[in-house]
């Protein structure tokens, strides 16, 4: 694996696939089809985009002008803050794959993950420039920031939805149906996880109290 890192072709392919994310952003239909079918996307580029997105989200806290964003540092937990992106992403990828694989979706788990990450591109691309600009804004002008902030999210959401349609080879209507269904799948998973952790903690508590009782009697 490390041997391949020394080869020039690996890097050329990586940079090319990273650049391809920009093409996907402007030509989503064509781009996401080629992403998996023409193998123009790489996992490495997908991971890079995800890391960039997370970094943007963290850097944003510190360098956005206080007129548009005020952070309560005392209440901020950086790990839960990052997980607030990663966990829904993970749920979406698994939920989407689990559903579409039952309904002739052509995408595999890895491809769903890759396409989702490629869909996040507008976030760092829009957020970083407006982060700088936000330091030169007054309250009245901050509406511009708010608008671009929302646009970056909506753009990413549209890209992800289109990407899912392309990699699973779904028609428009079916794609939207499965996007909604994926949201429900996420809800179901969250529900099951909550029950699961609730039961586990109950079970553990039972055995702990049993052990305590034993120690007490002996």
């Amino acid at each position, binding site marked *: 694996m490390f041997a391949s890192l020394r080869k020039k072709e690996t890097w050329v392919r990586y940079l090319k696939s990273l650049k391809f994310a920009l093409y996907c952003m402007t030509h989503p239909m064509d781009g996401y089809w080629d992403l998996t079918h023409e193998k123009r996307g790489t996992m490495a580029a997908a991971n890079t985009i995800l890391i960039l997105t997370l970094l943007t989200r963290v850097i944003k806290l510190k360098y956005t002008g*206080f*007129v548009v964003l*005020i952070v*309560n540092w005392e209440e901020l937990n950086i790990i839960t803050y990052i997980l607030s992106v990663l966990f829904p992403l993970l749920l979406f990828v698994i939920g989407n794959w689990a559903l579409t694989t039952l309904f002739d979706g052509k995408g595999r788990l890895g491809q769903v993950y890759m396409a989702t990450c490629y869909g996040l591109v507008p976030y760092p691309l829009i957020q970083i420039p407006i982060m700088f600009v936000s330091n*030169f804004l*007054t*309250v*009245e002008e901050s509406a511009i920031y708010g608008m671009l902030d929302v646009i970056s999210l909506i753009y990413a959401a549209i890209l992800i939805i289109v990407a899912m349609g392309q990699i699973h080879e779904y028609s428009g209507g079916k794609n939207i149906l499965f996007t909604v269904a994926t949201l429900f799948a996420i809800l179901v998973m969250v529900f099951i996880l909550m029950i699961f952790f609730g039961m586990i903690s109950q079970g553990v508590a039972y055995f702990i109290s049993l052990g305590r009782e034993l120690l007490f009697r002996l």
Partner: protein
Amino acid sequence: MKKIFSRISAAVFAVILTVVAPLTAFTKESNYTYNYDYWGEVQESPDLYSVCRVFTSTDLNLDVKLNNPSGLFAYGNLIYICDTGNNRIIELERSSLEKLEVTRIIDSFQGADINTFKSPTDFAISEDGNYFICDNGNGRILKLDSNLNYMMEFVKPVDNTLDEKLEFQPTKMVIDSAERVYCIATGINKGLVKYESDGTFSGFVGATPVTYDWTDYIWKKLATQEQLEKMESFVPTEYSNIYMDYEGFIYGVISGADEEALDNGTADAVRKLNLMGNNILVKNGDWYPVGDLYWGNGGGHEGPSVFVDVTVMENDVYVCLDNNRGRLFAYDDQGHMVFTFGGNGNMDGYFRRPAAIEHIGHDLFVLDSLDCSLTMFIPTEFGRTVYNAIEQFDAGDYEASGKSWESVMSQNGNYDLAYIGIGRSLLRQRRFEEAMKYFEVKYDDENYSKAYKQYRKQYVEDHIGIIIAILAVVIIVPLVIGRIKHIKMEIALAEREKIDLSK
């Protein structure tokens, strides 16, 4: 071995220090005066007021002890207490800073059939020197001259929308400079009852907007007639007290507003009414002027603060009296909290059932109707500095105001108003960059924007040459490079053609 031992003992010592030190810090009793910061956290503050004296019936040498006093009015250095339970009004004179003496007990007057009062609840003196008394039990507002001769009375308004069976019970009133009367009456929720100076009823002013939840609305649509009758109807909440400030604006406090509506700012706890009856209270603070922000149960008291009275000083600072937790809340003209202090209890400076508040100058008087006492507060050094800073700013003396705020800040570093005050005075002195720093520290984005806008303008004006130069370079350089590339390419093409031709 010795080394290890000394290290262990040092570690143990450190642990003890960290565990014990905070405990000792917390045992100190305080929290009497506090303020809320940007995040809504309680920030303890040095006292702005201290109790000068508490006057009870005995201190005032009254033969008949006060019984459920409920109204308070200050006029010059005279203070009037409505001794509701004893059907009389007591006139006190403040002859020196710490002294209050009974000068007159008003319990009857001349010139009317019923010439005594029945549970009077409020008292006022007009600019012409006539006395107005809310004679609650007799359903009238009396107007007497200063020698206690009957002049006229204001009775139940003649209005078709009022229930005929409703007994008119005026509780609180204010008199404007033309002797028009505005009063609050039990059971009338259309706003304040307004009378012209000749006694004719001229309408209701300043009704509070009705607030309701959309879930309530849906329930109402679905409910049957019988269920509807049992439900609360959407009615405006009544004012609990009113006060007319030195400019003639009426401040009204409302108790019992919906908790959720108070929290999201759709209901008010304090309103400032103009002549049209519209609310013109400025709410620029980080939090709405609703009193306490935490409504959990504490010492048997829960729910939002219940404002029962308000008084407005000449520097536009208004002080609201909360009879839920027995506290005083003061806000400035922008709606920033200036201070909060008080509590429930029997000690001096704490209340059992505070009913009314008044001021003479900066001194505050609070009447407790259960304790039957009058507490006199005078500002401390810190309080005086805060008031100085506010008044110097209002007078346009920005430099002095900045100095005063700096002194306030050195006495209480957790006081947001001090930072904003310094910032505002710097802003007026056109020192924008420094002002921006102070506003940023306390997250005052509105004022920051004002300063920043000026700073940005100044910066661009000062550096216009450089900015144009940079812009020019950014635009011209690519153009030049493009041009050069173009020429080079043409030369190359021409040369190739030359070679081709020569072949």
